[in-house]
């Protein structure tokens, strides 16, 4: 049986819809991982031990176990304790928390790298510790962390394929459906790869623009 790519256009709409879900889940999980990452970083650096310890335990769990297992736990496991999340929501939460832990590491390092003079400049004006952190230190730390965090976002995009196992109709699962009807795995996995590649290019272009935009304010 030779290769026949002519079947791919028949499933163009399915793949595009899959692409839309992949983008939605990447944006959702990306934003979640960004904000939770900041929160975790601040807690890890400045939190009282009673919040710092749970966050550290949580970080350790999420870094030390497979993402696939985490998704199963959130989607299938939580039902048992009465939390029945839609697959998309479970996927966003699982990916978001997983990458939040990695983002938190980056943000912690970049908060510590903000010049001490920035802190002194703000405190001298009368800003409190919290105000200084919120308005002076964190905005700078976040700007500094955009390039490495961009790499995390690209990893997140690719790892979003894992949510296919909990039934989110993103690119990978869309391709699998097409395959189950046409028995043409090579063609559709290749098509799926092309879809990821295109989304990835767009993401990279977006990140580069963001980097350029913040260049003057660093």
């Amino acid at each position, binding site marked *: 049986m030779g290769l026949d790519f002519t079947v791919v256009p028949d499933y163009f709409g399915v793949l595009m819809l899959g692409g839309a879900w992949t983008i939605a889940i990447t944006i959702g999980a990306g934003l979640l991982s960004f904000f939770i990452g900041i929160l975790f970083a601040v807690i890890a650096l400045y939190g009282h031990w009673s919040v710092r310890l749970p966050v550290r335990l949580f970080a350790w769990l999420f870094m030390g176990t497979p993402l696939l297992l985490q998704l199963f736990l959130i989607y299938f496991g939580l039902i048992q304790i009465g939390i029945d999340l839609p697959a998309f929501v479970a996927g966003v939460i699982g990916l978001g928390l997983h990458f939040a832990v990695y983002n938190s590491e980056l943000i912690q390092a970049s908060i510590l790298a903000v010049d001490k003079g920035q802190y002194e400049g703000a405190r*001298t*004006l009368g800003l409190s510790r919290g105000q200084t952190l919120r308005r002076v230190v964190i905005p700078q730390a976040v700007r500094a962390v955009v390039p490495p965090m961009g790499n995390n976002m690209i990893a997140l995009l690719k790892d979003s394929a894992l949510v296919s196992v909990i039934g989110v109709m993103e690119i990978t699962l869309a391709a699998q459906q097409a395959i189950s009807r046409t028995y043409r795995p090579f063609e559709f996995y290749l098509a799926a790869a092309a879809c990821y590649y295109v989304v990835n290019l767009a993401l990279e272009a977006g990140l580069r623009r963001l980097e350029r935009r913040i260049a003057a*304010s660093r």
Partner: protein
Amino acid sequence: MPDVPFIEIRHAAKSFGALEVLKDINLTVDRGQIVAIIGPSGSGKSTLLRAINELDPLTSGEVWLEGVQINKKLPHRQYEKHVNQVRQDIGMVFQHFNLFPHLTVRGNITLAPKMLKGLTTEEADRLAEEQLAKVGLSEKIDEFPSRLSGGQKQRVAIARALAMKPKVMLFDEATSALDPELVEEVNLVMKQLAEEHMTMIIVTHEMDFAASVCDRVLFMDQGVVVEEGPPGVIFQTPAHERTRNFLRKHLARAAGQA
């Protein structure tokens, strides 16, 4: 409050372990007075300045501003609140400017007045325009600090401090990090403040500037005030050998640079 000194430092001492950086320093500054602190590096002059607004708290001794003790011993939360309050009245300008790079010039100047004094955006903008006009940088209001020269950055930093309407301004080697040709524009702004009778305490290496602007000069060495007096006396007829030595070395170095 006629009998309360404007600024009073009593028996200020500070040590890092066995190292004493300030030893029993007493100083009063009247409203509108301009005091220069000179001395070799490591003499404790910056530490003394930074003790005034609690950036480097004293080990012992007291700092008072208009009858309010700045370095009050208080429980942590109350202390933080108190310090945040008194710092609003004490402007400080740093050697390395410490402008916030993520904010425009406008953002740098309006941040604290908006957050701490509840100014509306319009009020704060007007304030920023006023202060920038004063330091001659009106046209830079929407620039980021990365687009400014060192001298311009320092003038913005002065405008930012002035926007809080402080009672006193502290200058910690404000021109030391600047290229020689940029020093003058910052000195001019400081002179202008002097003419407006802003109370200023200036840690500096620029003897000419200290001589032309200040009412009093303190010479510090090894954590003590060796001598103080009007600039004419300190620079022309210093009483102490240590002062003479310092000035001689300094003059030689300045001559070498020129």
